[in-house]
């Protein structure tokens, strides 16, 4: 019972620290609002372009926005960890019998919960603009986002533990996420891409998540792309969690 208990303790600590800091809470809430305010107005006009996928502008773009939010939010959590390394918190916890998996999961779950709250906010605020989604669809999309959050937060923590400094962490993470994002079809559907680009995009795991998200928002819950997207994210998340938990156990100089 050590792992769930320890995970809960670490989760509570980090959720508490997050909520104690009004700046972080404000940024966390304003971020999704910015996406809607500064980006959504573009959607109205582009939706009338010939060849634009069916289902209404918001139903095409919101899944992409959510996944982008998940990617950016989760990959940046390593900055916090580097800070914790510097002030000795990680070291202090490693000299307790606390489960190493819990050190990772507690933090990653905090990141997943904040991502889900932000996502829910985007979905709710998009409803008046014509977004349509069923409750089941919403649950599926939240599950998908939770896996994305877990996957990229774990990777971010593993990289942070590895490089140990913001100077190396920032360029590494940004140069890794950019191709992932561009090839995923988040910004524009990959159906518009030439064949060679589409072939490369097959190697981008995030593209399957985007496909799954679009299918859900298109009310095609039973589509094979949904199962595929969720399964790929779940498998990768498990690998990332295992790798990051190992990093927590390894020596941190």
């Amino acid at each position, binding site marked *: 019972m050590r792992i769930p208990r320890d995970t809960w303790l670490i989760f509570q600590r980090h959720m*508490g620290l997050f909520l104690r800091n009004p700046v972080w809470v404000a940024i966390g809430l304003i971020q999704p609002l910015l996406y809607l305010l500064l980006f959504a107005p573009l959607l109205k006009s582009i939706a009338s372009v010939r060849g634009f996928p069916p289902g209404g502008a918001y139903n095409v773009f919101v899944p992409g926005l959510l996944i982008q939010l998940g990617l950016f939010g989760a990959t940046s959590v390593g900055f916090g960890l580097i800070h914790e390394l510097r*002030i000795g918190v990680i070291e202090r916890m490693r000299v*307790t019998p606390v489960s190493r998996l819990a050190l990772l999961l507690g933090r990653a779950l905090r990141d997943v919960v904040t991502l889900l709250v932000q996502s829910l906010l985007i979905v709710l605020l998009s409803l008046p603009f014509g977004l349509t989604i069923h409750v089941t669809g919403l649950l599926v999309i939240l599950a998908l986002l939770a896996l994305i959050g877990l996957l990229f937060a774990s990777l971010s923590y593993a990289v942070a533990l590895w490089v140990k400094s913001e100077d190396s962490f920032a360029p590494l993470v940004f140069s890794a996420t950019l191709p992932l994002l561009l090839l995923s079809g988040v910004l524009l559907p990959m159906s518009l891409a030439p064949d060679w680009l589409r072939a490369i995009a097959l190697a981008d795991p995030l593209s399957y998540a985007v496909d799954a998200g679009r299918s859900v928002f298109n009310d095609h819950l039973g589509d094979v792309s949904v199962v595929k997207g969720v399964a790929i994210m779940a498998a990768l998340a498990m690998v990332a969690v295992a790798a990051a938990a190992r990093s927590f156990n390894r020596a941190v100089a």
Partner: protein
Amino acid sequence: MPIIETSGLRRTFGGGKRAVEAVAGVDLAVEPGEIFGFLGPNGAGKTTTLRMLATLLTPTGGTATVAGCDLRRSPQRVRERIGYVGQAGGSDLQSTARSELVLQGRLHGMAKPDAQRRAAELLALVELEAAADRSTGTYSGGQRRRLDIAIGLMHEPRVLFMDEPTTGLDPQSRARVWEEVRRLREHGVTVFLTTHYLDEADALCDRLAIIDHGRIVIEGTPAQLKRQVAGDVVTLGVDGDRDQALLLLKAQSFVREADAEDGLIRLYVERGETALPAILRLLDGAGLGLRELSLSRPSLDDVFLRQTGRSLREQAA
């Protein structure tokens, strides 16, 4: 039975030609209830040794038992029995002292009410009650250090490891931390600390080891170490025939060496405290008056200098 015992403990960083042997075979025995100091310049291997003993770093060779458990076979059981105060501290600036303490207790498996009770106890002990529910970002360096120590003591460990506990503190806060550490001895807690301050090693430690280039060069109580080097120095000025006095004193068995300089006689003796009364009796018996008399003891820096050929003061500066 020693509470910390190592044999041939070593740690190498990197591999191949670029391998660096940070700790090159350390043999140690620390008895329960001791304050044991590891003294050495930066890069001597003292922090690496401490980090190995505190389960933060896996040794590449040798064996060690800490608090009755094998360090390499059961690090998890070692962690249950030790406390650790790192150089960087370990509390979050947004967090409060009380919540950090309670969390630490809970991470050690304590139930919430027990952790809260113990936290209150420790807050009183290190006199942080008034600041207990403020965020630690508002603390002074000394307050934060006392919190770090309290965090390390939360689960009543048998051994507390402290990595340079007073580095960066003002003199007053240093004195407070020393006081806390001495109090631990009264509670039967064994303290293993590293320092590069000679006065700290001298004032605080029951026993210490000087480490240089990954090896222990000498070990003992501060007094033993100092005595081993040169013995004590007695300087005296006499009224009357100085040469007569010098001859008289040179003939004594407790005087290793004697010379005269600037009208003063300098004697190198085994133990100053027993030599002084004998010197007084001798001079009195010979009818020689005493103008001045002083006893000085070699410093740990003299010990360090003698053992390593370098001064620790130069290193620390």
